[in-house]
Structures are given as structure tokens and as C-alpha cells.
């Protein structure tokens, strides 16, 4: 069962990356985005990293489903075409990390 869940996470990562790659190639024609933030990608990254790191806060859904959804969302941003999605991912990690620290260390 444990390994089945990890397979689910891996498949979620692969499918999310694939979708992110296809959509970002449709959306952006230029090879790089220097200093620009994609609001949609930022929301996906923040929600995705939040669900992965703080899945325990969502009590009405089993943890593995929350993490699977989170991985799918964060991998959509992580898997965007080269030159895109990095800043959004960093912000997502930082926001989710701060919430994790507040939840586990401070409270």
C-alpha cells in the first residue's frame, strides 16, 4: 500500500510536469521570462507546495489525496518550459515553508 501511494505521487508529478510543459509552450513563445511573475503559476505553486508540506491541516480529505493534488499542482509550475516557473516555485516553497515552520515550531 505504501509503495502504491508513492507510485501515485510519482505519476502525479509526471502528469503535472507534462501538462505544465504543454500549457506553458502554448502560453509563452519567448524562450525566457526574466524578472516576470506569472500570477496563475504563482497561485498553483503556492497552493501545491502548501498542500504537500501542510497536508495535515486539511482534515476532511485523506492526506495522500491532498499530497497527490499538491504534487500535481507544484509539478505543473516546476515542469514549465525552460526559463519559466522558477521564481514562482521559489515563492511557493518559501510561503509553504513559513506556514510549516509556524505550524510545527512556533505553535
Amino acid at each position: 500500500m505504501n509503495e502504491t501511494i508513492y507510485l501515485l505521487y510519482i505519476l502525479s508529478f509526471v502528469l503535472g510536469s507534462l501538462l505544465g510543459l504543454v500549457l506553458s509552450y502554448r502560453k509563452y513563445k519567448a524562450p525566457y521570462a526574466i524578472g516576470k511573475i506569472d500570477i496563475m503559476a504563482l497561485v498553483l505553486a503556492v497552493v501545491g507546495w502548501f498542500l504537500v508540506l501542510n497536508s495535515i491541516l486539511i482534515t476532511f480529505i485523506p492526506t495522500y489525496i491532498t499530497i497527490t493534488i499538491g504534487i500535481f499542482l507544484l509539478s505543473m509550475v516546476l515542469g514549465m518550459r525552460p526559463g519559466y516557473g522558477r521564481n514562482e516555485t521559489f515563492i511557493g516553497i518559501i510561503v509553504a515553508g513559513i506556514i510549516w515552520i509556524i505550524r510545527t515550531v512556533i505553535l
Partner: protein
Amino acid sequence: MANILLNVLIAFLVGSVLFGLQRKIMARIQMRPGPPIIQHLLHTLKFFIKESTFPKTAAMPFYIAITAMLSVIWVAAIIVGPVTQGSLLLIFAIYAIHKIVEHNAGSSSGSPYGKLSCVRAVFSAAAEVPLFAVLIIIYFKAGTMNIAQIISYQAANGPLIYSIPLAAAMFFVLILSKAPYSPFAITKGKDIISGYETEHFGLLRGYLMMSESTAWYMLLWVFLTVFIGGLSPLWYLVGMLALSTIVGFINATTPILNPNHSIMTQVSFALIGIVGSLVLLLY
């Protein structure tokens, strides 16, 4: 059966993503954006829908059978490793067959690049000395070749990486030699195009790449299991990410060595590792 299929799927997907991650890390170090992390996986899947052609010079049916053999041996490695936690000797035997597949895949194609890769694969068999030495050192230390018993030994006495670090270093060099773009990857040096894979197209290439991803996962799995102990899937993933990142750094900053230098460097590592490990075992 379901357990085998589950582990094979995990091995293939994780191995492919780790190869992609390695390319990404190498690219970032070299100031390039690099391909997406799932590029290697997409590249592998792409070959399954490409047309398969067979060179006139290919030695049939060996040319086709060799790809099936590569797939079968690494599925066997998964059965011996994560599924049944059997003997390390079987893993060594599978690795030895992998070498045979490398040089036979090269020679069966009839391509000069494949043949050069075949010669290099035979030549680089010297790099297997460290693996054999690692097995003996593990046996001296843990008193067993069985993976399940090695895990139990480590649970009782601590990870083997602390007691026989040089053996772990030797095994790491072996892992490094199997990474694409590594300084020791002479069988697939870009001077011989894609080495033994050059003349394998379409479906056959897909199976070769799939097996290589599985092989990469298995080598990392063996390293983590034998030198650190039985881990949870999450810690296996973390360990594999860490090892692949280190390999990516090494590959990005070193050129592929000349075959003579590659073998001599590996043999030198082996010599230091064997002598050092024996000294550590004695004192």
C-alpha cells in the same frame, strides 16, 4: 506479481526523472536553462511510437534479443532487490550481464561506433574490480551477502557507510561510471555518437533507454540499502535525489576521460579503496 509490476514502474519513472534532473543540474551549472526534468522520460516514450528500422549489417536475431535481455536483467534486479531482498551476488551477476549486453549491443549492430563502444565495454570491465571488492568487503564486515540480513546487520550495528566508507566510495565511482556524461562513461562518449546504442532505433532504443533508467534506480537503491540500510520510500527518494545531484555536479564540471585514463583512474580508486578498507577492517 503485482508487487513486481509496481516496483518496475516506480524504478522506471523515478530513474527517468532522476536522469532528467541530472541534465537540468548540469545545464544550470553550465549557465544554460537546460531541458525540462521529465525530458528523459518523454525522450524514452517517444521512441516507442517511432518507426523501428534494422540495419542491413545487424547480426539478427542477436541485435533484437540483446535489448530484450537488457530489459529482463534489470527487471530481475528489481525482483532480487526491492521485491525479495535476495543475494547481492545476484545483483553482481546482473551487473556483469549488463556489461555483456553493452558490448554485444555494440558489436551486433555492425556499426563502427557500436564496435568501438563494444571494445570500450570490454576494456572497462576493469572497472568491475571495485564492485567485486566491495562485495567481499561487505561480506567480511557483515558476514552475509543477503540484502535482508545486511539491512538487519545495519539496524543493529549502524550504517556500513561509517565502518567501510572506502567501499562505499568505490561503489559510488561505479555508479558514476554508469551516469550519462560522466567522466567514466566511455562506452557512450560523444566521440562515438551514442556508443552501443547508435544503431538501435525506435522500439529497440526505447527498451534500451527504459532499461537504463531502471538500472540507474537499482544502482542507487543498492547503494542506499547496502551502505545506509533499509529506508522508507520517502528516504529512498531523498537519498536518490542527493546522489543524482552529486553525480550531476561531477558530470557538469568534468570532461569525459580518454578510455585509458578512465580505466586507470577507476583502478586507482579501487586500489586505494581495497587496501584502505582492509586496513580499516583489521584495525
